[in-house]
């Protein structure tokens, strides 16, 4: 994977108002916040479906990869980006509905079965293999849609990539939109009600099945958008990029406590920043390993996550 940081750290970005070391740290932190915001979108998607079904969709990464690769294929076939990108994102939502139907719903019929772990993982591996067999397992170039990876702007003396800035803006907008949806709309409240107590929600007249399907569509759309944004930053997609991304999203979700939008956002950004700092000062090879180190530390000392509350039930 090409490291986009090397681009923003080119000599012309240096020696302005701030000295090199400061510039370097700020650029790392900024890059971390941006990729972290993308992890937050993935984390939010995983959380949404976790809330409504108490399952984790381990196929999510491969689903978003399939959608991204399909987008590349559509662009390659000459379809305009304004059509191909939304279609790819909708495809991610649609695939998520299929995943719920075939890999999750049947397995929830048998009580406390954990079969969904195997079925969602299996679906993900199948898609990864399927895409590899059709497109090959090499990285495929993903064309720049809005900004070129070399575009940059000067923010308070720090050179920041326009692409990163756009990614950050869009991610934050989506997270705010999700929060408003969950708080202010009837369907958003229904998602929360189903996650608290599906039986009580059904008795309130809420069509629980439809709310679950909705949560999967939303999860897919968020993941689809995240996939396109990551593809913009890295410039390529390959059959395994989705899985890596999902793992990072999962760590961000656990980090944030899986309870709410703020948790996903803070978890994602914290993970992104730590990762980039490790990448900048230790080695980029250690970057992704960091995610797992964080996961282990969190599970050991604060399993409910930074923002999580312990599940409480009244007797």
């Amino acid at each position, binding site marked *: 994977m090409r490291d986009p940081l090397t681009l923003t750290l080119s000599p012309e970005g240096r020696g302005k108002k701030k000295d090199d070391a400061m510039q370097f740290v700020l650029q790392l932190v900024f890059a971390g916040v941006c990729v972290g915001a993308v992890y937050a979108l993935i984390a939010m998607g995983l959380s949404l479906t976790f809330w409504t079904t108490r399952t984790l969709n381990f196929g999510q990464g491969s689903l978003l990869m399939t959608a991204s690769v399909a987008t590349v294929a559509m662009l390659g076939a000459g379809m305009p980006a304004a059509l191909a990108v939304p279609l790819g994102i909708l495809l991610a939502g649609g695939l998520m509905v299929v995943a719920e139907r075939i890999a999750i719903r049947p397995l929830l019929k048998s009580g406390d079965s954990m079969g969904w772990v195997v079925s969602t993982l299996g679906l993900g591996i199948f898609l990864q293999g399927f895409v590899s067999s059709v497109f090959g397992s090499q990285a495929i170039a993903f064309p720049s849609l809005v900004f070129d990876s070399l575009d940059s702007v000067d923010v308070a003396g720090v050179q920041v990539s326009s692409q990163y800035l756009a990614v950050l803006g869009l991610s934050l907008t989506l997270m705010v939109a999700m929060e408003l949806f969950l708080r202010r709309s*009837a369907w958003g*409240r229904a998602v929360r009600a189903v996650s608290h107590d599906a039986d009580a929600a*059904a*008795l309130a007249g809420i*069509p629980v099945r439809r709310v679950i399907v909705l949560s999967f569509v939303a999860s897919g759309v968020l993941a689809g958008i995240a996939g396109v944004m990551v593809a913009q930053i890295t410039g390529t997609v390959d059959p395994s990029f989705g899985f890596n991304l999902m793992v990072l999203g999962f760590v961000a979700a656990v980090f944030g406590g899986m309870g709410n939008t703020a948790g996903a956002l803070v978890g994602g950004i914290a993970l992104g920043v730590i990762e980039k700092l490790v990448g900048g000062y230790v080695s980029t090879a250690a970057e992704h390993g960091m995610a797992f180190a964080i996961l282990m530390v969190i599970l050991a000392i604060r399993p409910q996550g930074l923002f999580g509350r312990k599940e409480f039930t009244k007797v």
Partner: protein
Amino acid sequence: MPDRINPVGGLEIHGLEVRYGPVEAVRGVSLRAEPGTITAILGANGAGKSSLMKAISGLVPATAGRITLDGDDITRLPPHERARRGLSHALEGRRLFHRMTVEENLKVAWDFRNRGGSFRAVADRVYDQFPMLAPRRQTPAGMLSGGQQQMVILSAALIHEPRYLLLDEPSLGLAPVIVQQIFGFIESVCRERGTTILLCEQVAAIALRVAHSGCVLRRGQVVRGGPAAELAADPALSAAYLGG
């Protein structure tokens, strides 16, 4: 209980069975709730009361039998469809949405059964009815006292003026003075709004005080039935079926 379909109205249950795997929780229960009355369903813990209620509201499937609401067979309808037909069910154990505010709990109950009208007006009526909820409308429901939670549950269940209300152990874990207030409210709902109420209770004495008629469940079967006054006057009843 006579086995007939009333085309005019009411909630009728014929030969209802509920099974959880090999366990038979409800075994051939037939009963009829007369419109505008309170029917008490009594029985010890594990007699099948909650399973009967859940089968009526659709949370658990009936393995046999038929449930009709105003003459319509609702046995196969999903629970949210039954809710939209004016059948409301307040679950046992104060199951409300703990992390949502009082107002959000009411809003969730309102949104998907909305047949028009103003939520604001309905919510204000709830706060008039239970003034102690008014200052707590933005408080997470999980932080309320048991009595206040029961008030929220009842208000949410009644927010659309349902014609039928299933209440599962509303007195459970509440202080006697609160129980009196809650039962006073239940009685007034039936009297003033004409709501048909099925009331599950382990504490027979409280339930029979407000009910018009009652039946006693034992191991999933109806073993006694009749006017509430008659059941209340029967000293053998509590000793035999209710465990004191």
